């Protein structure tokens, strides 16, 4: 590689520095958290006291509930004499996580295989890529019933309903993976390809020994996008699949009752976001393990 000979642009970190950096970034995270909180509350207070109106926007408890209210809602009963909201949401999150995990795996695989096929067969790429793009612009809510009606009867009993959700989740997941895989696999240094050609390596070998390793940064970027997307996909998929035990059901309900209890929707979003973040972290961890190359290439 052209750049292989050069030393690292950034000197390697010492352990001490690394610890200091970690501490600093945690500190910074907290600082941002506090800053956002202050900004939110400050803006709200300012808006409420001045009666500020920006277009439709007006600061009040409905548009901007207090952050502490959002958090404390979690630890209040979900209704009179009911379990704590956080317990309800925790169960829902676990349920959704299962669907999303299957959806993510499925979507990542499909996306990768599709990307690899398109990268290898230019004709395929020219013929089908537009329609893969088209498939993604079809509003999922319009096709979701079709998916449920078609997929559900063909699933084994154990997978009924939530299997269809996983399929919808996969549908929302595969596209970024396919696009990035395609780009990554075709971004290989032509000289590196020539080497493989000189060994008369078959496309399969070229794929595994050259293209995929070279494309890993692209693929992992896509997986990082796909991980939270699979959670979104699962949540959206729960609606047409009539699943009420997941976060989708909760969101739909709180959505419906937003005017009476806005903090609940915000709290549920918080949980959905945490779920997405944990999916993201899993991918991040996998990346750390899989990609071992020049430090400057691992961002």
């Amino acid at each position: 590689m052209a750049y292989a000979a050069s030393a690292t642009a950034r000197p390697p970190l010492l352990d001490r520095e690394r610890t200091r950096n970690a501490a600093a970034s945690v500190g910074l995270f907290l600082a941002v958290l506090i800053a956002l909180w202050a900004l939110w509350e400050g803006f709200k207070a300012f808006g409420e006291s001045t009666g500020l109106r920006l277009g439709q926007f007006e600061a009040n408890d409905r548009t901007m509930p207090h952050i502490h209210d959002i958090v404390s809602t979690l630890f209040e009963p979900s209704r009179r004499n009911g379990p704590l909201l956080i317990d309800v949401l925790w169960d829902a999150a676990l349920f959704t996580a299962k669907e999303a995990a299957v959806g993510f795996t499925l979507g990542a695989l499909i996306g990768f295989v599709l990307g690899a096929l398109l990268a290898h067969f230019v004709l395929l790429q020219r013929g089908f890529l537009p329609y893969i793009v088209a498939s993604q612009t079809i509003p999922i809510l319009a096709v979701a019933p079709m998916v449920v009606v078609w997929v559900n009867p063909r699933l084994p009993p154990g997978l009924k309903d939530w299997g269809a959700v996983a399929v919808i989740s996969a549908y929302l997941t595969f596209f970024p993976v396919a696009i990035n895989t395609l780009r990554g696999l075709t971004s290989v240094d032509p000289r590196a390809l020539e080497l493989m050609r000189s060994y008369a390596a078959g496309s399969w070998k070229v794929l595994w020994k050259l293209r995929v390793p070279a494309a890993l940064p692209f693929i992992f970027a896509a997986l990082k996008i796909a991980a939270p997307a699979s959670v979104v996909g699962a949540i959206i998929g729960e609606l047409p699949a009539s699943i009420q035990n997941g976060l989708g059901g909760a969101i739909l309900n709180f959505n419906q009752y937003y005017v009476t209890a806005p903090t609940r929707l915000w709290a549920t979003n918080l949980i959905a976001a945490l779920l997405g973040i944990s999916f993201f972290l899993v991918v991040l961890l996998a990346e750390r393990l899989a990609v071992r190359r020049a430090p400057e290439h691992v961002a």
Partner: protein
Amino acid sequence: MSEQAVVSLRNVTKSFGAGGVTALQSIDLDVRPGEFVSLIGPSGCGKSTLLRVVGDLVEPSSGEVIVNGKSARQARRDRDYGIVFQDAVLYDWRTVEKNIALPLELLGWDKGRQTERVRELLELVELQGFGSHRPWQLSGGMQQRVSIARALSFAPALLLMDEPFGALDEMTRERLNSELLRIWQASGSTVIFVTHSISEAVFLSTRTVVMSRRPGRIAAIVDVDLAQPRNADTREEPRFFELVTEVRDRLREGGLDEESTAPGEGELVVSEETP
């Protein structure tokens, strides 16, 4: 002649892009089995392109390339040759060891043999102890040595080498010259070798092909009739110096025949501001 030739080029022309650079023009060349042919010529004259054409890594615009009696493509498919590129082309995600073992993996050697072979090769190119380093942790010359080791690993019958020793110090270079000669003689393989060092070309090869400036043509072919095996003494022989002078003369002629950039022309006007 072409019956027995390992590599045979017939009227090969290569130009890049529509109406772009013509890298090779009407090249005719036969390389006989067991020959050690050096290619020498001004920078940008088409040496690397020629090697690529032989290796079926670039398709000639016209003309015919026969390798081992078959098409270049078939020869490549049969893994008839090993190549050292001008720049090392190492895979960053593989350790040095694994880079060297790459062709062996592709040939399906078993792990044990691979390890053994890689150890030998690391020793040959004096990189013991760097086996588990990554390419970007090596100096330029070390990278080049890894790529040499990789090409030698499966002992191909035809070796295509593009300035393999360019980034090496004189001592290492001389040692590897001797090693290469030894391997060549022991295995009876055929070598096509690009170099900018006239003395290296003469020392190593049985024939030296002098190419002329763009568009690349064969300006002359110098038969190197020095005795085999060659060694340190060879460099002291008068015939060696004669041949070096002859190649140099041919090169000068070839270098001048197209563009006549007299030295001194194109002088750099030293910029006024020296900071």
